């Protein structure tokens, strides 16, 4: 596998867990993985971003314009990191049901660059699953179910089960599946 991923959000949203799931998927598939996490002060509700590079890379940082996938757990943080996506890349963003507010110019540029921006109300789905904290897993399910996803959905689901703490295993499986279903509904729209 060869993939570059950005996961952006706020402290407490599970940015690091989402990126660690994808890192473990790569490891299980026998690929090299390197990435960068945010720790320390910014974790107190501030901006948190994880970089992940799978394949023959040596540096932990993704350069702007080269990410295959941008996962945004928060709409503002996703917007801030949109330019990390490569032309033709995929951005999956947790957006409250109100919808996207990045402005016309940004939307037009995304179109020109062929960057697909997919929105899902992961917070709402997570609440329906029984835990607001699993929006990150909903978004993972949503992103990996997309046909353009570089990560095989079964491998991500299996890894998620393997590394989830036992008491969150069922909740995480539900959240992942609900995220995937939301993506399939997108497809039929």
């Amino acid at each position, binding site marked *: 596998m060869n993939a570059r991923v950005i996961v952006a959000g*706020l*402290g*407490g949203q599970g940015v690091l867990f989402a990126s*660690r799931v994808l*890192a*473990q998927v*790569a*490891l299980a598939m026998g690929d*090299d*993985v*390197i*990435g*960068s*996490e*945010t*720790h*320390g*002060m*910014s*974790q*107190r*509700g*501030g*901006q948190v971003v994880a970089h*992940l*590079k799978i394949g023959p*890379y*040596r*540096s*932990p*940082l*993704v*350069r*702007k*314009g*080269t990410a295959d996938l941008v996962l945004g757990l928060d709409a*503002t*943080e996703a*917007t*801030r990191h*949109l*330019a*990390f*996506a*490569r*032309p033709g890349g995929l951005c999956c963003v947790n957006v409250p049901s109100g919808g996207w507010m*990045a*402005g016309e*110019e*940004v939307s037009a*540029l*995304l179109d020109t*660059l062929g*960057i697909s921006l997919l929105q899902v109300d992961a*917070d709402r789905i997570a609440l329906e699953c029984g835990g*607001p904290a699993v929006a990150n897993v909903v978004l993972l399910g949503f992103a990996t179910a997309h046909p353009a996803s570089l990560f095989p959905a079964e491998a991500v689901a299996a890894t998620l089960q393997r590394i989830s703490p036992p008491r969150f295993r069922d909740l995480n499986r539900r959240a992942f599946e609900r995220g995937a279903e939301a993506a399939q509904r997108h497809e039929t729209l």
Partner: protein
Amino acid sequence: MRSGRTEVLLGNGAIARGLVENGVRVVTSYPGTPASEVLAEVIRFRAAMGLDPSHDSGQALYTEWSTNEKVALEVALAASMTGLRAAVAMKQAGLNVAADALLNAAYTGVVGGLVIVVGDDPGPHSSQTEADTRLFALFAKLPVLDPSTPREAREMVGEAFRLSEQFRLPVLLRPTTRVCHAVQNIELGTLETLGRSPHFKREPARWAATPRFRYGLHVELNEKLKAVEGVFEASPLNSTTRMSNAATRIGIIASGVPFVTVLDLLDELGLDMPVLKIGTPYPLPRRLVADFIARYERVLVLEEPDAAIELQIADRRKVSGRLNGTVPGAGELSPEVIYSLLARVLADGGLAKLPPAPTEALDAAVAALKLPPRGPRLCPGCPHRSSFYAIKRVFGPQAILPSDIGCYTLGLNLRGVDTCLDMGAAISMADGFYQAYHLDGDRRPIVATIGDSTFVHAGLPALANAVHTGARFVLVILDNGTTAMTGMQPTAESALLADGRAAQPLSLEELAKACGVRFVRRMDPYQLGAFQALLEEAGRYVRAEEGGIAVVIAERACVLYDPLPVCQHPVPVTVTEACDGCKYCLVAFECPALVLNVAAGKVEIDRRTCIDCGQCIEACYKGAIVPLADEALARAHGPAEVVL
């Protein structure tokens, strides 16, 4: 030796693994981002490899969270003097605290290998400075290794131990944030069994050297460094890559994270430029570097966070780096910055014109949105918020509020923090503010805030000084029972040590009293009314003729560390019609769970982040924030969540 098992490790985990695999017997640390995880990872690997002190393996490994970095270094140094391998981990600011020990240890030297892991923070992401520990190594005259990735950091630990024992010198390992907090798959190795027992050999001319002997030790140190430089000239830690392109007129010297950043960039861009990687910035292998520079018309030096390699190059006529202004003098060398540096150097040389990054226009459009930066904030329910709110209420806008390093620095957001300099400075600066104002007879209130861990780290000498010199101020020790900002490490008050063994817990009251403070009181800041009354009493004591320094210990567990007390006694609140959107609570209480509904012109409770601490009830002087009545509670939460 490889174990055949692979794990995705944090850089700090990779360093910890390297320490344990290389037979380290004593590891000490004081938590500080980005180096905090090293010790916890050592403890994890130690348990997995059966090296707990409780096992009689002859390889037992001792660990401790020391009270500060100077103590940590001295504990590790003494262990090394018995012939055991030892290590200490800290952040760059911690090395300032340990500087005296470090500079002296360079002269005395070591016996067992001593590796000093210091995390630098280009950016800075979680630090007060972008200090470069490689320059500190140059100043202290100690070798330093500069890893580019977690994998290399693990390898360098072994090299550092060997070097340390060969030359009987402490060796610094200097990762930066993007190594410490990088993740990488790493094949685990096996334990190197050294079979050593502690044996301290008396040698007063070295271990207790007076200035007369120190001259000789300095001469010896210089000779050691010369020999180390010779080793580095041929070390595999320094290497050249991409030397095949004979036509190029530009070379790159890079170390640390910029080295791997530039390699990935050259791959992406399909560029072939020669790169000299430096893994040993001090002492710099000067012949290797000079030979490389001689081959090219211009050489770009990429290093973080300052100019340690560049500074050691005697003839810099062909060199472009920080010193001639080519490379920015502050901030991280991100892939974007290095890309623009490469573009500039290549264009200047008439060699190539790099295309703009593919999403440059998108980047500009996003920047034009002027998205507000979202800085860190005290968590909902954080007891520090209650303390700061009470301090502001009691002492008013005239009060000077020196604070310190920790989560509570975020009291800035409540305007409860006027200064934040370094560990322990809250107390000495309160002392200084008092002395300065006292000269003019101005008796305005001064209220210092400091965390429990920081107080023991460097606050004690400051408090002894302030008491002794007759300063007057209120000191609030914010006692949340843990070192929260860096990841919940135990403090000197904790009943358990880092590895779960029983500790001798210290009492903050007794420590304060031992410094000579006679007014020492402890209270839960969640009891806002009583806590404000206590602060008023403390203020009166400070002003009283027979008074002095008043210490108030605000005791309440960090809600992330121990959420149980709030879970057991939830006080859910709601905002009534009486809210007129004045925003007083948003400014004065600054809780992330209080949000303004702009359309409604009212404040609302964000149920996703609110933890039902109920502290904001006091923060609305119009009485619009009230406890949620039982039936309303049932409606808002649904029956399932009423049972908390």
